[in-house]
Structures are given as C-alpha cells and as structure tokens.
C-alpha cells in the first residue's frame, strides 16, 4: 500500500521528467529541422543560381546549334545545287546536238529548274562586297582581299567586279606589297579598261612602279592616264607626280 502511494506520489514527477525529456528531444529536433531548413534554403538558392546559369548555357548552346545547323544546311543546299549544276552540265555535254532526251533507262534526267537557282545558295552580292570593303576600312587587308576574290569568283560579271579588282590591288598596296599590288591594278586595266576604276588603277600602277624604283614604268602609267582620261581627277594628280620624278 505504502509502495502504491509512493508510486502515485512519484508518478507526476516521473511523468514530468519524461515530458521534459520529450520536450528537450523535440526542441533538439526542431533546432535540427530549422538548421536543415536553413541549409536547404542556402542549397536551394545555390541550386537556383546554378540552374539559371545552366539554363543560360542551354540557351546559348541551342542558339549556337541553330546557327551551326543553319550554316550546315546552307552548305548542304549549296552542295546539292553544285551537284545538280554539274549533273545538268554533264548531261548537256553528253547529249548529241539536236537530241531531245537521253535514253535514261528508267533514270529521269534532272528536271529543269523552274527559275535560275544561281542566287539560292550564294551569299548576297551587296553584302559580300560591303563586308570586304569594311575590312579594307578597318585595315583587315588579307580578309578584304579574300572577300573580294570570293566576290569575283561568284559574280564575275557584276558592275562591282572592277571595283573588287581595284580593292584587291589597294589591299596589297596598303600592306606595301607593291609587286602584288601592281599585278592587281594591271588586271583592272586589262579586264575593265573603260570602267570607272581604270583611271585610279593607272594612277596607282604608277605609284607602285615608283615605290619599286621603276621610274620609266611610273612615267608611262601616268602619261597613258593623262592621254586616256584627260578630264579625270587622277590626270591632274598624275601631272603633279610626273613633275616630281627624277
């Protein structure tokens, strides 16, 4: 009986101890949870910024892929075009004069294009020319020369062909490669003798000769210029230059 009373008396105390321990444990757990949550938050912020960075990269990669895919596509189309051109050329050459259709034995000859496909795969001529000229103004002479050469290859009969040929000469002249420059200016005179760059090409040829120490060549270039284009601004300049020759 005494034991029971003692137990009953101690029970709240013991229970109290239990509750307190439970409380301490719960508080610890709460602390732990709180710390974990903070850690999680930090990690979330970090992950968030990493994710954003990753998204950026993905976008950039996508954009790059699209650009590359686009240019690859263009190149493939251009190769297709070249192949078709080649095929049709071979066919035409193989055909005897007057023959209407080859005996194809089931293989159809390439269908004639609806409209000339020439420009389909080529860069825009104005853009190609402008880019090369901008390279001249920026002093990227080698780039400019290859740009103008590309232009001449693709558009040899363009009204800007003589200009392109002139700027190739100028690209060499700016780099003090006078021998190469002279050859290019001479090409302007040989290929486009009556177009707008001719007078300037005569004048520049004379300057190249002078730089190369070939006075007779310089004199002859300038005299021809004065004779052929007497009213050009270059003719006036040439007269001044001839006076300076030894």
């Amino acid at each position, binding site marked *: 009986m005494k034991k029971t009373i003692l137990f009953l008396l101690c029970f709240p105390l013991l229970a109290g101890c239990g509750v307190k321990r439970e409380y301490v444990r719960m508080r610890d757990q709460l602390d732990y949870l709180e710390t974990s949550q903070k850690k999680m938050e930090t990690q979330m912020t970090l992950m968030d910024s990493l994710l954003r960075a990753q998204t*950026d990269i993905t976008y950039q990669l996508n954009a790059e892929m699209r650009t590359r895919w686009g240019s690859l596509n263009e190149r493939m189309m251009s190769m297709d075009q070249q192949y078709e051109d080649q095929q049709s050329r071979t066919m035409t050459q193989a055909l005897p004069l007057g023959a209407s259709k080859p005996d194809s034995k089931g293989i159809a000859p390439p269908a004639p294009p609806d409209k000339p496909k020439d420009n389909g795969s080529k860069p825009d001529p104005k853009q190609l020319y402008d880019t090369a000229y901008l390279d001249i103004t920026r002093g990227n002479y080698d780039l400019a020369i290859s740009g103008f050469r590309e232009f001449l290859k693709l558009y040899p009969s363009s009204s800007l062909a003589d200009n392109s040929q002139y700027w190739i000469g100028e690209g060499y002249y700016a780099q003090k490669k006078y021998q190469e420059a002279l050859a290019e200016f001479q090409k302007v005179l040989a290929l486009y003798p009556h177009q707008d*760059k001719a007078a*300037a090409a005569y004048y520049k040829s004379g300057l190249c000769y002078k730089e190369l120490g070939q006075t007779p060549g310089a004199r002859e270039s300038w005299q021809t210029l004065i004779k052929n284009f007497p009213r050009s601004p270059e003719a006036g300049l040439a007269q001044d230059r001839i006076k300076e020759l030894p």
Partner: protein
Amino acid sequence: MNNKKNFKHIFTGLSFLFLTSLVAAQTDVYLKLSTSERRPIELVVTSIQAQGKIPQETVARVKEIVDVLSDDLAFSLYFQLTEPPDSDPGYGFKKGQVLAGSWQLLGAKMLLIPELRSDKKQDHLKVRIYDLGVGRDIFAKEIIVDHSRGQAHRICDQIIKALTGENGVASTKIAFCQKNGQHKELSLLDYDGYNLQKLTALNTINLSPDWSPDGGKLAFISFQRNRTEIYSLDMKAWKLQAISQVEGLNTSPAWSPDGKKMALTLSRDGNAEIYLYTLDSRSLQRLTNSWAIDCSPGWSPNGRELVFTSDRPGSPQIYLMDADGSNLRRLTYQGNYNTSPVWSPKGDKIAFVSRINGFFQICAMNVTGDGYVQLTYEGDNEDPSWSPDGLHLAFSSNRTGSSQLWLMHWEGSGQKAVTNLGGALMPAWSPFLPIP
C-alpha cells in the same frame, strides 16, 4: 552500400561535367560582350558595404564616387543598370554573403559591390564585380579614395577592359570652342562635361580643334593675324606651333591616324581644295582639283581614305577618295545639303550634318552607301565628333536656346547636354588617352 557508392561516383561525375560547362559558359559570357551585336549585361550597383564602423559622412562622400562610376558604366553601353530596392540597404546580403537568388529576381546577371573600409587616415574602396551565374568575383580593384571623378572614370575603363578586352571612354576628354564675348577660345572637358579647363587665351577667334592620334597635341584654326591659319598646341610643353600660314584660307585640319600627316583645306590656288601636309618634311601635296569647293576632310581609321565635302554636284555632298586623291566617289544622295563628315573609328559609319526642313541635323550612314539615318530632330545640331570607341557622338546643339555640347549614342539614343556655358561649339572627342 554499393548503390550509395555508385551514386556518389555518378554525382561526382555530374558535378565535374557541370563545373566544366560553367567554366566554358564563363568564357562565353565575357567574349559575348565584345561581339558586334552587343547585348548589355544587366548589372546592379549594390549599396556600399561598410567594413566596421564608418561615419555616415564618409560613406556619403564615397557614394558620390560610386555614382560617377555607375553613370560611366551605364553610358558605356556595355551594361544595363538596374536600381537596387531603396527601402532595404541590406537587401540581397546575408552576413556579407551574396544571396544570388534575390538579385537574380531583379533580373541582374552581375553585381557591382563597393566595399569600404577605413584606417586612421585613409578610406579604402574595393570595387568587386560579382558574377551571379558562376557565384564569384570576376573583377576586384582596391583604391585609396581621393574623391576625384577621374578615379571613378579609371575604374570604369579597367572594368570594361577586363570584361570585354575593349578600351572604355570614361577617361577621355572633349576639346571645344568656348564663346567668350567676341572671342572663341579652346577649352577642355572630361567626356561627361565636368572638369572645365581653359586651353588658350589668345583673345581672338579659334576654331575646329582636332586631336593628334596620341592625344598630345591639338591642331586648330586661329585668326590671330586677322586671317585663318592653322596652329598646333602641344599640351604637355604648352607650346604653340604654326602649321599652315599660306595665302588665302587655311582651314579644317585633320590629323592622319599615324600622326605623320594632316589633311587641310587651302584656297591658295584660287578655290578651296584639299591638301595633304607631311609634318616632318613640311611638304604639301594637292589632293583635289576642281572648280568646286572641296573642304572638311576626315580620315578613315586605316589612314588610306578620306571623306570630305564637295559642292561639285551643285550643292554640298559627301565624297570619299583614297588618301592620295585618286578613286573619288560620291557617298550621299539624300537631301541637297550634307557637310562636316566624320568617319567612325570602327570604320563602318560616317556621321555628317544634313539640312532638313531648314534645320541642321546630325545624320549617319554606312560607308557602303546605305543605312542612312537621322539622329537629331530638335533645333540646329552640328559638328559631330566620334568617341574613340565609335559607340558615341559629341555634337553642338542650340535646341535649348544657346549652343551647348551634347552627347548621344551611335544610333541617336541617350541624348544629353554636357555643358551649360555662355556658348560651346565644335567638340573634338579625344583619342584614348594614356593614363597619367
């Protein structure tokens, strides 16, 4: 256990891949800044992070320097500045650490964090550029604050150089003609209109300043002897030297990009023609020869071509020619009055003055003859001059009543007056100047 190990390996592998891609991305971001299709970087300049106890006065004075830096960065076109929330100075930081997410919520890609600490005599300002994408500083520079605007300009240029590889214009200057009663004297300003300095006191009319490419000299026209003559002012030795004093007009000096020659307009042979003056040999070579007026030459950045004004078609128009006078071609066909051409240092554009509906306006076009665009619309706007990075233009405008200097970006945006003087005209934006 095995599974855990495997997971750990996979995780390590993934983290490695992730980090490598971050490194790759980081290079990409910084390179992207310098491409022609410039996309400005979203930047937030945070509040000053004071290390320890620093008097509010000091913080306020350092804030002025940070504000100059912010203005420079915003004007540069490399950055787009977003304001941090005013209400909470501690926003986005926790125990000194950057909370990236909070800033990214504002749309920021980078932070400029000014950190201030003081010792007994000096205030030290550390400027950090923190990339939120990679979570670390990509630029840091500490200075002892001297409270000069030049200090902020220099940091701006260093940031732009570090992030883009390009030179910034924050430390450049603008020379111009300042009206002083009947006289016009040359003066100098920081590019943002501060720090006015007088350059001449010749008590006459001085016009058309033009910088030598090394920034050491200014060529200009002076009426000292009651006629137009060209002089050069050495700004280190403060020495004046006569360049051209021939009979008739001596105007529009333009220094060649290699500094060895000067294109000039002279009328010694009857009418105004363009000449090439070689400084060493003091020899003159005539480049144009027509009955018309040929004037105001400007150089292409490679020094091989000249742009100039000629009225040979009956009204003034812009022409191009090779720097030896050959290969002449007309550039402008729009309107009947185009003059004062200047070639962009980037090589691609030419800015000029066009008379539109009776007013002078700044226009620009591609050197390839297309892309014509009108840049100004109010009042008369004249004398365009490119910044050395080709991203901005200085010009004079009377839109507010008197002629003042104005700046704008290359496509016409961001127009702002930088002077409020009795009269300011003919700005000449300096080249990149050596840091003193």
